[in-house]
């Protein structure tokens, strides 16, 4: 028996026919076989007949192998790739609404945002909304720092990723 880290996170890129019902098929496959999806993002690709899903899952090698095979078995799936096995760039986008009670707090938050190369995208009377993108750890660090001000709401996209080109 292979003993692998059960909690190893994998970013799987699934290229599928851009058709009605495909998302349900994929989500159904994961739930029926008891695999947990950490995050999922779907969008059309440069070819409008094709969509790409980036799915983040945790599991050992055996589970990953089954996920890979089961996904490939679906008729609408064109290609499955484990991006964590390859050189890749990953990004996630977060929108964070943070409480700012005073002028000083606003100043402080704005400074943090600029260090993290984020953007202020909305200003309320007592809140600032921040857009930040990057790898998971960067977003977590940002959230951690903002916690002291009081985070009102966070929306995260889930990871997207793409392989690096060497040619």
């Amino acid at each position, binding site marked *: *028996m*292979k003993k692998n880290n059960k909690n190893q996170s994998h970013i799987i890129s699934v290229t599928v026919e851009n058709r009605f019902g495909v998302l349900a*098929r994929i989500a159904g*496959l994961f739930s029926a076989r008891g695999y947990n999806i950490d995050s999922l993002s779907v969008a059309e690709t440069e070819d409008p007949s094709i969509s790409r899903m980036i799915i983040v899952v945790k599991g050992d090698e055996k589970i990953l192998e*089954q996920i890979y095979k*089961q996904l490939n078995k679906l*008729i609408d799936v*064109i290609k499955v790739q484990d991006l964590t096995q390859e050189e890749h760039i990953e990004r996630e986008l977060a929108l964070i609404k943070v409480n700012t009670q005073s002028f000083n707090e606003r100043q402080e938050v704005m400074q943090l945002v600029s260090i993290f190369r984020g953007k202020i995208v909305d200003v309320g009377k007592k809140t600032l909304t921040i857009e930040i993108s990057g790898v998971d750890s960067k977003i977590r660090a940002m959230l951690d720092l903002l916690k002291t001000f009081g985070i009102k709401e966070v929306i995260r996209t889930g990871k997207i990723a793409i392989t690096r080109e060497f040619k």
Partner: protein
Amino acid sequence: MKGAQIFVECLKREGVKVIFGYPGGAVLPLCDVLYDSGIRFILTRHEQGAAHAADGFARSSGKVGVCLATSGPGATNLVTGIATAYMDSVPIVAITGQVATHLIGNDAFQEVDITGITRPITKHNYLIKDVNEIPRVVREAFYIAKTGRPGPVLIDFPVDIQRKDGEFYWPEKVEIRSYKPKYEGHPLQIKKAWELIKSSKRPVLIAGGGVIISNASEELKKFLEKTNIPVAFTLLGLGSIDVEWEYSLGMPGMHGTKYANFAISEADLLISIGCRFDDRVTGKIDEFAPNAKIIHVDIDPSAISKNVEVDIPIVGDAKLVLKKLNEVAEKIDISDWLKKIKEWKETHPLKYEKNGFKPQYIIEKISEYTKGDAIICTEVGQNQMWTAQYYKFKKPRSLITSGGLGTMGFGFPAAIGAKVANPDKIVIDIAGDGSIQMNIQELATAVYNKVPVKVFILNNCYLGMVRQWQQLFYNRRYAFTCLKGGQPDFVKLAESYGAIGYRVTNEKDFNEILPKVLEEKEKVVFVDCRIEPEENVFPMVPAGASLTEILDGLA
């Protein structure tokens, strides 16, 4: 042309000669076209019967079986049949009517999301949304059903599109960019496999349903005769080759022969062909074939290394892989092993106590009489296991049984489908008194359509297999398994439908009627065999135990 006409024309192009089905509001236009289309329509008495009949048709012939139902309850009644076909990789195309497209999603009368419901139990499914996509969808559906690892495909066909005008065209070939089944095994893997086989001392081959699906019997026989490697057959693999071959081990697993289970447990090499290592075959997985390296040939990559770790995976079609193996195969030196196998077979044969009227005896007699030439269907339970143990299967597609799902009520409608596909063969359903009542209404279908199948009910007045577990593991508390109260008179019941009914209670009477039953060419026959009510299926490996922990039941 109307959508319904286009659809039926496509079915004809696919070579469909018979459809098992049941009408309703959402398939009225389709049925109207089918009425004088030349395609035989067999009206079953329940949609589940239609699905199982299409399944039996497909398993017995290797062709795609077709069933049809209306929307809503008609469609949901197909579900068990579709799941049964899915688990056993049977190519069927299920056609369902659907409410008109503008009503979909509105909880319209008799609307169900049948593509949603059947998503996990079909190989693929379609909801037709445009009259112009009918030919492509039908073409793809049949192609997907029968290629690669076969399986059921459902087409949901809204009633307004059946009535819409469109053009008929026939796509020259099917091109699905995301679906390219792989048939040729990797040559290097095959070479490695043979190296391993050659150096093995105690090899066992396990032949699964994949051997039968890929029509690989000839190739398997050749391989086995060249190498003399002992072979075990999973339930769905029975009939791959003659089960009476010198080094045949019969069926392994929960109710397998002792010698098959011993051989697997001592083997140093398992060659699995088209078998997915179901838990009924392996017993406790950690103790399965503890000393063996494993070669696994399967057309479905996801079947490989799912349940057991495999040393040499070969993704490919059983027939093609065996052909390649046969190019290099030769005698291997395993004489000590073969001697041991022979000893096991002699000292641990299948046996039962011959007191009273025994189900095993009935199967043996049917086997002797038909000489492996009949198509044997079964229900589920003890009847199924006794059939697997005591019928001497010789040919592929001669056993039709619900292996993966274990669907009671499967055998009788499947037998109808098999007989429709094979009118010249004797087709028998070995039934249990419980199972037969699950689709007993199909008596009308068989009688009316002149499909003279023969049903032997091994009547123990119990849900016998469940009762057996209660006897062995639940302190003989027979909770809800006694069928005595309310059991119909099967003879009168058969007669009331216009079939022949017999009742037999002993060997002598049974032997007297057996030729009459099997030689009856015109009529459906039911034989109510009043067997020993508490007879058990042995040997038995309890669920979760290892293959060597065998209960025997005999003193």
